[in-house]
């Protein structure tokens, strides 16, 4: 009996499901750069078990029900488990980053007399001096305002302690633009989320080698991407899932090929390409592209393709 059949028949996590969960979780942490849980220095078996215990104690019933309701065989179950664990790690990392950034913004904005601390129904908030009322609009408008702020690259930010001068200037510029758009008090948590999204990549991404994303076969991955849009450099700066997608696009894979390689449908492929485009644009932020390179970027990002 397969894992899904066993899970669906018993309603409980048996030994086979347990082994599958540990195996998939191990695969997720090996292929990404997520830090291990606080009390571990590396991704040992215990650290992986800690991650899973955390996932299942917070949303165990929800994810288990979701998996069994959506999976149709063991392979699709594994894909769902992989995505859930990966997204849980992203959420954790983001929550930690947003929390740290919220505290950092509290310090920076308190010391700048253009900003004013206040309280709203949802808790502590920030506003620009002179603005009245509480902002109640669409968070997407604030994200768009933050996106209009240029030159926001932050090379690195210390995990704690004072904010370096260049990073401080960037964070204040983005926060000011967001609060100007809001024209009212914005909850500190929302402000931190929007600023964090704009200055993403506060932490360097683990580099991957091309061999990791183009396994085996006759294709020389370096030959396949080198010299195009400085693709090798870009591919190696991306997380493995995105790097694999970029290599497929550089090799002019069809929609069907991409869907087959990534085990996904066309809608998901489009969504992943849109996310990839934003990352590639970020990685190319300091480069001036010639006409051919611009066309290549347009093609990669689906403007005349998928």
């Amino acid at each position, binding site marked *: 009996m397969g894992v899904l*059949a066993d899970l*669906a*028949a*018993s*309603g*409980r*996590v*048996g*030994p086979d499901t*347990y082994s599958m969960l540990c195996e998939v979780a191990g695969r997720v942490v090996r292929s990404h750069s997520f830090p291990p849980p606080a009390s571990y220095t590396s991704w040992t*078996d*215990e*650290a992986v*078990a*800690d991650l*899973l*215990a955390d996932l*299942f*104690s917070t*949303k*165990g*019933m*929800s*994810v*288990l*029900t*979701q998996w*069994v*309701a*959506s*999976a*149709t*065989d063991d392979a*699709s179950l594994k894909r769902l488990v992989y*995505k*859930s664990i*990966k*997204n849980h790690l*992203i*959420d954790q990392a983001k929550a930690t980053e947003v929390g740290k950034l919220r505290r950092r913004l509290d310090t920076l904005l308190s010391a700048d007399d253009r900003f004013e601390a206040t309280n709203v129904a949802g808790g502590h908030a920030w506003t620009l001096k002179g603005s009245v009322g509480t902002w109640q609009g*669409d*968070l*997407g408008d604030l*994200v768009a305002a933050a*996106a209009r702020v240029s030159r926001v690259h932050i090379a690195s930010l210390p995990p704690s302690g004072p904010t370096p001068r260049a990073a401080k200037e960037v964070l204040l510029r983005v926060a000011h633009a967001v609060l100007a758009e809001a024209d009212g008090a914005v909850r500190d948590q929302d402000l931190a*989320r*929007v600023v964090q*999204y704009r200055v*993403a990549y506060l932490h360097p991404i683990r580099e991957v080698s091309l061999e990791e994303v183009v396994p085996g076969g006759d294709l020389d991955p370096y030959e396949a991407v080198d010299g195009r849009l400085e693709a090798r450099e870009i591919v190696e700066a991306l997380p493995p899932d995105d790097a694999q997608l970029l290599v497929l696009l550089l090799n002019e894979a069809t929609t069907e090929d991409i869907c087959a390689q990534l085990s*996904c*449908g066309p*809608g*998901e492929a*489009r*969504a*992943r390409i*849109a*996310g990839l*485009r*934003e990352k590639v644009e970020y990685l190319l932020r300091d480069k001036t592209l010639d006409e051919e390179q611009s066309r290549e970027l347009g093609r990669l990002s689906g403007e005349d393709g998928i």
Partner: protein
Amino acid sequence: MTQDGSGAQSRLLDVLARLRLPEALIHDSASIAPLPAPDQLWRLLWGSSAAVGIVREVHEDTLEMCPVTFVPDEATQSAHLLPATSNTLGMELVAWVNLTRAFPVFTLERHLGDLVPRQAGPKDWLSEPGPTGMPILGPQEPRIILEAELQDRLQDIAEASWVPQGDGTLHKALRASGVFPSELAQLLGVPLPTALGIQRGQLPVDDQMAAALGPRIGLTVTGVLARNPAPPVELQRELNKPARRAALWATRRSVNESEVVTRRRAAASVYTLAARESTAEPSGWVDRVDRYLQVAGQAP
């Protein structure tokens, strides 16, 4: 589970031991499928795509359904969050009202439960504004990919079909290959009037006949069946009922057989037999399908 562990592994085993899926999702507890009705929760399944939805409206061949998922953290601003008290599953639901659409009735796989009437306020859980998921900030958010993946699955299910649409070209293929009624009768082992009916495009062939006929006219079994005249709408609807699905699956010739093949074989077999037995327009599909499923389900 028997794994021993310490620290985190023990904690994980403890957490997992406390989890049990809702009764309605456990195969052994599946009961006889009811007739679809508004506010029911059903699992939809077609091929390798599955999803769960709330029935909003019931039509003859389709159902208007609002897809639901179970992990509130994955909701976007487009999705309503319904509390665990809203349904008999006792689970918080993410109701994707923005993705409500029609699904073929034969994709209903299992009745999972029902929405329960609200204690106060408007009766409908979905039409009134309530809590929603967090807004999406940009294309790199995993929730965008999860919603797109859900949409892909819904698209697959919504586009499901098994009836050979408007083909009915078998008689032309026979003519093109120079197959005459007497040869056809001999080839298929059927009386001459039946062979004439097939020759005129009035009668379908079943899978055994298709296997006998295929090599003669250069088609596969599926290819022959796909050229059959479409089965009557009343027969299709009888086979489309959710209550028939489990019995239809029991007639599969192998675990890898697609549901399209299983359904087409069932329709062709029932229709062919009915056409042989009746000179007028056949009817009585409920009994005919009952008989077929009983016999075919017991076949080795």
